């Protein structure tokens, strides 16, 4: 396939997610010479997508709200009509899901969470890619041998800033050019997986946005042991996090878990109390600006990797920190 590469725009009822711009930057890195087409699936007619050279809007009643199978079917129909040289998206939950559907329909390989990619040269030969495994703890170099290459880029690897448009000589459409509408046929099954309802959950300080996270691991020892951690968190306006051992023990809900199969956090300060620092935990908090480890074991990986450490029993240290903050605040 040799047409203009597609970037699938992740949006929720017309609200475009910031992360989707990373796929524009990724596509531009893969194809510095080609114009890039943004593809908006469903919803009302969008504004032209800034940073892309052209915008397709796929319009159909079955696509009004997110519908994974129908989105995949519709995108595949557009790809059949346009023969894009690749289809890329940011590796969000929806991005990966829609690309998996297109890949399944087209029986093409799909490389998820890619961080580097070199298209086959000459076109039609296998791509060389580098992708994340183990939630980011391991890199994989691979060959992608596809007539329709389908790739998602790992979150937060490519910049959110708008990439420059393609050089003029190759341009097939101008930025701001009219949005091209495409109406797919879609089979009778297209509407069978779609959002039928939404349940709002009110949240206070969230783990993913809190400036400080106070997190506890096996060393906390019990559900009650988290009282001191909660007290410290409250004083600091922090969220409480935990390791997988803690959720497996039932001491905290899974919503508090940080790591590969939990949440990714990037606070100004991450205080790890009684957490050893397994890689599956580390990938969830490695983006923290500062890490303070509180641990009995001076050789624990969390201690050796942290910026700051206190050695000793968290059951003495955490309450002492709470007291000291209260004392200074008077």
């Amino acid at each position, binding site marked *: 396939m040799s047409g203009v590469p597609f970037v699938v725009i992740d949006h929720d009822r017309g609200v475009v997610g910031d992360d989707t711009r990373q796929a524009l930057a990724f596509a531009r890195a893969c194809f510095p010479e080609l114009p890039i087409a943004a593809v908006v699936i469903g919803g009302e007619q969008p504004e032209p997508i800034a940073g892309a050279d052209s915008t397709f809007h796929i319009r159909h009643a079955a696509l009004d709200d997110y519908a994974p199978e129908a989105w995949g079917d519709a995108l595949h129909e557009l790809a059949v009509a346009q023969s894009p040289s690749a289809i890329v998206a940011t590796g969000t939950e929806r991005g990966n899901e829609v690309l998996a559907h297109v890949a399944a329909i087209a029986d093409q390989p799909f490389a998820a969470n890619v961080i580097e990619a070199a298209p086959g040269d000459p076109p039609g030969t296998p791509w060389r890619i580098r992708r994340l495994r183990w939630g980011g703890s391991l890199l994989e170099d691979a060959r992608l041998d596809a007539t329709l290459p389908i790739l998602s880029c790992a979150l937060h690897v490519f910049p959110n800033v708008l990439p420059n448009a393609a050089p003029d000589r190759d341009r097939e459409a101008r930025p701001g050019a009219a949005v091209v509408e495409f109406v797919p046929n879609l089979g009778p099954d297209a509407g069978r997986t779609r959002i039928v309802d939404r349940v709002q959950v009110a949240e206070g300080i969230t783990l993913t946005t809190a400036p400080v996270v106070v997190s506890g691991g096996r060393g906390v020892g019990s559900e009650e042991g988290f009282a001191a951690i909660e007290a410290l968190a409250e004083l600091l306006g922090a969220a409480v996090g935990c390791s997988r051992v803690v959720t497996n023990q039932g001491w905290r809900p899974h919503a508090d878990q940080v790591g590969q*199969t*939990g949440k990714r956090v990037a606070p100004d300060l991450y205080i790890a109390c009684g957490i050893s620092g397994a890689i599956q935990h580390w990938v969830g908090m490695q983006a923290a600006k500062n890490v303070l480890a509180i641990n009995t074991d001076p050789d624990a990986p969390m201690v050796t990797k942290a910026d700051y450490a206190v050695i000793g029993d968290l059951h003495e240290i955490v309450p002492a920190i709470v007291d000291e903050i209260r004392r200074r605040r008077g």
Partner: protein
Amino acid sequence: MSGLRILVCVKRVPAPGAQITLTPDARAVDARNLAFTTSPHEECAVEAALQLVEAHGGDITVLTVGPPEAEEQLRFSVSVGVQHAVLVSNDEMAAGDDPDPQATARTIADTVRTLEAEGDPFDVLLFGNESADSGGFQVGVRVARMLGIPIVNGIKGIDLADGVLTARREGDAGFEVYRMALPAAVGVKEGINLPRYPTLPGRLRSKKAEVRSIASTTEPGGLTMVRFATPTVELSETVLLGAGASAAAAVVDLLGELGLA
């Protein structure tokens, strides 16, 4: 309906601790000193199946595509209450090669057809959202497409009533709700439940349970692993603030310096 027939697809993965070490040819994780486990999302998929059968009756088949050693993970599933176990393998997998996602999906779809030809069709197929090691985000979707059944990924809640499966997925500010008529497939995420531990009778049963072996004959797909590499991590020197409760003052000083207290 005389209860549900459920299939759960699981993957065996190593459980590395603080660091992943590679084999000298960098084509595999050096697992000589590692324990193995069921990939976490799939562990929760097994628990979700057990809860569905407790509520609605029926039986569960656990399936893995992998090396013969993956029998360990199948037996673990039996020890928590799964009835049937199926291992699909071949010489390449026995030698430690992970099949690519297209090959894995074709193998599973073929096996489902074989199992369904011998008995009733499956009502519910459960997958992990993505495997812990390779993280391809696609096997469940491919299998569902091959079998022509609906699937939703990223699911953290399942209810079943009157042949309709309601699935919940975490969104930005709450949950998205999906509804599918059976047969349906779901990509499950950790957090949907808290997997149970095996009981002693369960353990004994799992030792004697029959694990059915099926040979995989699938051709490889288009994504080929070449080698692995460990990412470079930039580490600063750790500043020791002290030991024990007497370090509290230094910690609060630090909080002040960082503008956080």
